[in-house]
């Protein structure tokens, strides 16, 4: 589709838009009912099993929901209580910190994925499996092993640190630091996932580009920054979106690594943990529903922003 110069006269721009609208309508006609056939099975399932529960939750956020059912309308009480609850803000802060750290893994993953994609790399399969291992393992076992590694008095990490003269803290028992510890594990386990998605994206880049660059005498680093990264941006965008969304959902990992009896848990809440506590521990399901809705809005907003900015940096063929 043609893009007109930004300074084109008003009339010309209008007709470009009209052109696009016309093209769109034509395309729709041409596609006919087919798109619906493709989409309906998925949409139907999603609507029934996922959208409907969200609507229910939205409704319940305005009520006080009894533990075993039965609800009384309370209007926006839950929301008012939520907004004035300091736990919400500390949970938000923790979640953002966690997300930030895990996002650092993406540039690393891009670089590692491109290394693995080097043609003729020996043991490429082996490396791929190696990096993917953390993603495969059962979360219960992973959490246990990391707890032992992080142990303040007897763990490997502090032992290694002591060899270089650093007195390691109690990683999972100190507020503030615990989140970082959990984020490290989060980063470690998500690296493999990012790498395979990026790896798949890399296969879409034609070797011709690289060949041409070689002929021009470009260094591998130059090739990386000028060819690989720009052409990989759609996949990077995808990985970023998914990473942000799933990081905002931090719960299982936090719960498993810190341990359910951990006294600093109330100080290291994540957003979803706040939800879980209200919904399943203290049995305030209406309040929990309100928390869920707020999480929804937060994640939705961040995702929307990302989509907005996409146009600035993501290349489309």
């Amino acid at each position, binding site marked *: 589709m043609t893009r007109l110069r930004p300074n084109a006269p008003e009339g010309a721009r209008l007709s470009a838009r009209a052109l696009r609208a016309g093209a769109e309508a034509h395309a729709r006609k041409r596609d006919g009912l087919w798109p619906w056939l493709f989409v309906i099975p998925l949409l139907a399932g999603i609507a029934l099993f996922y959208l409907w529960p969200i609507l229910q939750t939205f409704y319940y956020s305005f009520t006080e929901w*009894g*533990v*075993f*059912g039965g609800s009384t309308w309370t209007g926006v009480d839950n929301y008012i209580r939520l907004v004035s609850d300091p736990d919400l803000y500390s949970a938000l802060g923790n979640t953002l910190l966690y997300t930030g750290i895990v996002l650092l893994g993406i540039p690393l993953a891009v670089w590692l994925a491109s290394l693995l994609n080097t043609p003729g790399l020996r043991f490429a399969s082996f490396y791929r499996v190696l990096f993917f291992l953390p993603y495969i393992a059962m979360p219960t076992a992973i959490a246990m092993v990391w707890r032992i590694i*992080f*142990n*303040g*008095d*007897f763990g490997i990490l502090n032992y290694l640190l002591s060899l270089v003269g650093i007195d390691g803290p*109690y*990683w*999972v*028992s*100190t507020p503030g630091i615990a989140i970082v510890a959990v984020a490290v594990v989060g980063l470690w386990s998500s690296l493999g996932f990012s790498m395979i998605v990026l790896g798949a994206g890399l296969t879409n880049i034609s070797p011709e580009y690289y060949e041409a660059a070689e002929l021009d005498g470009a260094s591998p680093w130059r090739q990386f920054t000028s060819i690989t990264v720009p052409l990989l941006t759609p996949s990077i965008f995808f990985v970023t979106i998914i990473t942000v969304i799933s990081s905002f959902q931090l719960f299982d990992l936090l719960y498993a690594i810190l*341990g*359910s*009896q*951990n*006294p*600093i*848990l*109330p100080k290291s809440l994540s957003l979803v943990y706040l939800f879980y*506590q209200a919904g*399943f*521990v*203290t*049995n*305030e399901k209406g309040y929990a529903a309100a928390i869920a809705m707020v999480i929804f809005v937060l994640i939705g907003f961040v995702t929307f922003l990302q989509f907005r900015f996409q146009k600035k940096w993501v290349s489309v063929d």
Partner: protein
Amino acid sequence: MTHSPFRRRTSRWATALAAGVGLTVAITGCSTGETPAESEGYSAPDSDLTAEITYAFWDATQQDAIEANIAGFNEEYPNITVNLDVTPWEGYWTKVQTQATSDTLPDLFWLNGPNFQLYASNGKVEPITGAVDAGAIDPANYPESLVDLYNLDGTQYGVPKDFDTIGLWFNKEIFEQAGVETPTADWTWDDLKSASQTISDELSDEGIYGVAAGMDGQTTYYNTIFQAGGEVVSEDGTTSGYDSDADREGLSLWTDLIASGASPSMPQLTDTPADQWFTSGKVGMFYGGSWARAAIGDSEVKDVVDVAPLPAGKEQATVIHGVSNVVAANSDNKQAAQALQVYLASEEAQTEQGDLGAIIPAFTGTQAAFAESYPGVNLQVFLDATAYARPLPVSKNSAAWNAVEAELLPDVFSGATDVDTATTDLAAQMTALLAKE
């Protein structure tokens, strides 16, 4: 309610027979009662009752004992199939709550003190009044304080199937190394403080401490609160007892122990649970439940330990708690479920539990197997403790104020906040929550 293909309805014939008969003779050999059954009362079902029921619980380590019980049950009721549903602890409550909300609860399932009132007060649990009246279950056979735990507003919903109390586990080798006398039944808080302090001082270069505790209510501070003469929840269940001097005393004991170095610090106890300090031989004494017997008996220190009653404060006390088997109020197979409930509460089943498991069966007189299961260790301590035991403090929504305890008390123990301010705050919040129930 939906009937899943896996459930079969109780045979109409059996139901009619059981319901139609006015007089029943208890087939299971319980009391010779010939109590006339009211129409809602319990009557031991006919032995060829056919049903398929689900029995849900959370502790996989007790599965062998439970299967043995079921085998015994099936000797009397060969046509009742019992399907065991084991769900790990964390998921159990989510699952049971989901099932309760949709009224698809298992026919028979475990409840514990903190959760019992929630389910009973919402009509999800079937009372055992009928069975008691018919003489099939006699509450006098079980520790009284525990039986009360499963009584709500005068109605009894179940009897305990096991119990646990808290005791002072200690490592004889460490005591010898530090040159301290081992704990006796007469120990008081002062003895505890001086002994643990000495151990910590003497053995500090080996990283060994005097005493460690899980810093949770049941194993730690509820005990010391009771021992100081305090209460956690008031008698009538409407106010919190935390803002009293007695409670503060009970809590401060731990603050002092940590501050003086007799106990590892809070971060240390969080990173490494107290029981692991003990099983690794890094602490001389450990406030542990009777259930710790399994882990300790399997550890590196198993040959050098023993157990004594808790050191007493103003009075002697320990926390007692136990799980109960309850029948779902809207179970399709109530007859069969109740028959199983009755069987599991019987002396026969309880003895079997004791013989096979690491738990203490609740039926008085069946605990011999437990007491003898660890030669060299005086497990009788846990049984004797029932004389002065106090039930675990609970209410309709225990989880709500348990969460506040977990939020405010750790800082008291670590000395970060002052005990008076924290307890006043805790009491206020807790009373407000209790009022909401």
